[in-house]
């Protein structure tokens, strides 16, 4: 099974959210988060419950999500990572901090508190409602600013130029140090620390091991990911279902239902000699980055992989498919097949007379000089090749991407 689930039935979807909400509210209540004095105690060092529960929650979910992603069960690209609008976020956060220390709650806890009969919780919740409405009324005054410093989907590990696994391990270690500090502060300022029950200690210990283990032993390689999907995908390669004719690629560029991303996985030298216009050169090592970028994009995207023949492109196809990129195709016969058809448009391109067995992945054409994409053969127009359009069997079948789930910001 692939997570997150795609739930189409609206009733089921909202019922699940409702049940998750019940568990959320119950856990907050059981942690004492319905009591304002307990929450505010965080900021006078004597009661560190807020820090412990919150960071306990963050690291538990973080490690579980990370492991499920690493195991290939959960698609990180499909879960909602709050987009970063840096300055509106920081200013809003500071304002929230002020509201927290004056009123003693955050929005979620105040509604839970109200549900447990607390009048201060009820009034805070009423205040939150008023504040939210006030924001809606005043947002047009600073509408432009509210959309500035937009970094989109930005993760901590991208900011610090490290890997997901290393970042998880760092956050885990920092959190455990903070717990240790919190116990110290409680003893120093409140006279009494909460301590930790033994089984929770083991649970955190296990999570710390899990967080550190993966970066040490390595995340699953693309080969391992491919091995998981191979039984399903290998037959498609055998049946050549994903090899598209050059004319289909020519046409795809003009298809308005989707955008076409052409990735050329050949050497830079071959790419400079000649490439299809709009093709991006992609090293095999860069394919995971491409996969991320393509999946992040909300537009319906068809990816076509190109090499001189099609063996290298097939290897690249396996990588992208292993990384869950939808709608990936291979140019059948590669650039050589492309030039067999379109080289006639440019007198500077000559077929090479290669004697003997031609080894794979070699460019079989010669050029007067490096043409790059400055050639009519690099961007043929379908109108001038109507004869071709009847010749091929169209193979592109659009598979709708799931797209990342929505966030709590609506």
């Amino acid at each position, binding site marked *: 099974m692939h997570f*997150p689930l795609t739930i189409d039935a609206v009733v089921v979807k*909202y019922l699940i*959210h409702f049940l*998750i*909400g019940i568990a*959320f509210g119950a856990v*907050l*209540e*059981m942690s004492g988060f319905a009591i*304002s004095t307990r929450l*505010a*105690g965080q*900021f006078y060092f004597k009661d560190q419950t807020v820090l*412990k*529960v919150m960071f306990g*929650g*963050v690291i538990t979910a*973080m490690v579980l999500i990370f492991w499920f992603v690493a195991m290939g069960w959960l698609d990180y690209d*499909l879960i*909602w990572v709050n987009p*970063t609008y*840096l300055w*509106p976020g*920081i*200013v809003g*956060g500071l*304002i*929230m*901090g002020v*509201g*927290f*220390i*004056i009123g003693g*709650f*955050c929005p*979620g806890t105040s*509604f*839970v508190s109200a549900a*447990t*009969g607390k*009048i201060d919780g009820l*009034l805070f*919740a*009423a205040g939150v*409602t008023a*504040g*939210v409405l006030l*924001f809606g009324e005043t947002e047009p005054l600073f509408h432009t600013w*509210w959309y500035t410093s937009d*970094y989109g989907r*930005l993760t*901590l590990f991208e900011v610090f130029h490290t890997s997901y696994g290393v970042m*998880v391990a760092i956050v885990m270690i920092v959190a455990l140090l903070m717990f240790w500090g919190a116990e110290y502060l409680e003893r120093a300022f409140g006279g009494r620390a909460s301590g*930790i029950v033994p089984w929770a200690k083991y649970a*955190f210990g296990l999570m710390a091991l899990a967080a550190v283990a993966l970066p040490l032993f390595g995340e699953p390689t693309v080969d391992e990911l491919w091995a998981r999907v191979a039984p399903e995908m290998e037959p498609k390669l055998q049946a050549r279902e994903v090899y598209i004719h050059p004319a289909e690629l020519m046409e795809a560029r003009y298809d308005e239902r989707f955008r076409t991303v052409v990735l050329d996985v050949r050497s830079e030298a071959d790419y400079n000699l000649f490439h299809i216009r709009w093709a991006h050169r992609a090293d095999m090592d860069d394919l995971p980055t491409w996969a991320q970028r393509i999946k992040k994009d909300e537009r319906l995207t068809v990816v076509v992989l190109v090499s001189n023949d099609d063996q290298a492109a097939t290897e690249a196809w396996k990588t992208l498919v292993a990384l869950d990129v939808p709608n990936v195709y291979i140019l059948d016969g590669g650039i050589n097949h492309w030039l067999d058809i379109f080289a006639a448009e440019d007198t500077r391109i000559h077929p090479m007379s290669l004697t003997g067995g031609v080894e794979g992945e070699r460019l079989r054409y010669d050029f007067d000089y490096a043409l790059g994409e400055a050639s009519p053969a690099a961007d043929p127009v379908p109108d001038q090749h109507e004869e071709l359009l009847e010749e091929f069997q169209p193979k592109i079948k659009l598979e709708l991407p799931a797209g990342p*789930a*929505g*966030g*709590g*910001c609506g």
Partner: protein
Amino acid sequence: MSANLSAQAQAKPKPQPKPYLNPYVGGLLLGLVLFLSFLITGSGLGASGGVNRIAVFFEDLIASGHVDRNPYLAHMAGGNANPLLNWTVFVLIGAMVGGFVSAKLHHRWEVATYKGPRISVRTRWVLAFVGGLIMGYGARMARGCTSGQALSGGAVLSAGSWAIMLAIFGGAYALAYFLRKVWN
């Protein structure tokens, strides 16, 4: 009838409220709920988003034209759009149900006002409302509150969410000294 009931109530002593969870156990459970939410739905938890949509729903009932003319509001409730058909609304209502049931089961449901020893109940009420107002405003400005940003965004390592989390703690700690008489 009512005499009978009160006699019964006197006969049965009110059960003592049960103690709260060890905070680390609370954290583990909270993390588990958050993880399940991401696993099943792809989204985390949230509170202020639900408040927002319920508030806008009523605003739309009263002043529909006004909502349609404000792009920020129209995005949620313009024309025939129903602002309540959003997952955040269901999580918020669920959280209140969960809080209520848990408080009842643990004998912690009680009409009360919690405050520092040096302020009056009335002052506490005013501060609660004002604090809530400021919190609600900030939560929308940051596109999510402690639940939607700090907790959920924190767990999936969103850079912006971590900045917001630090800002919330920073803002509260910075002002805590000046409000020490309110809470201590």
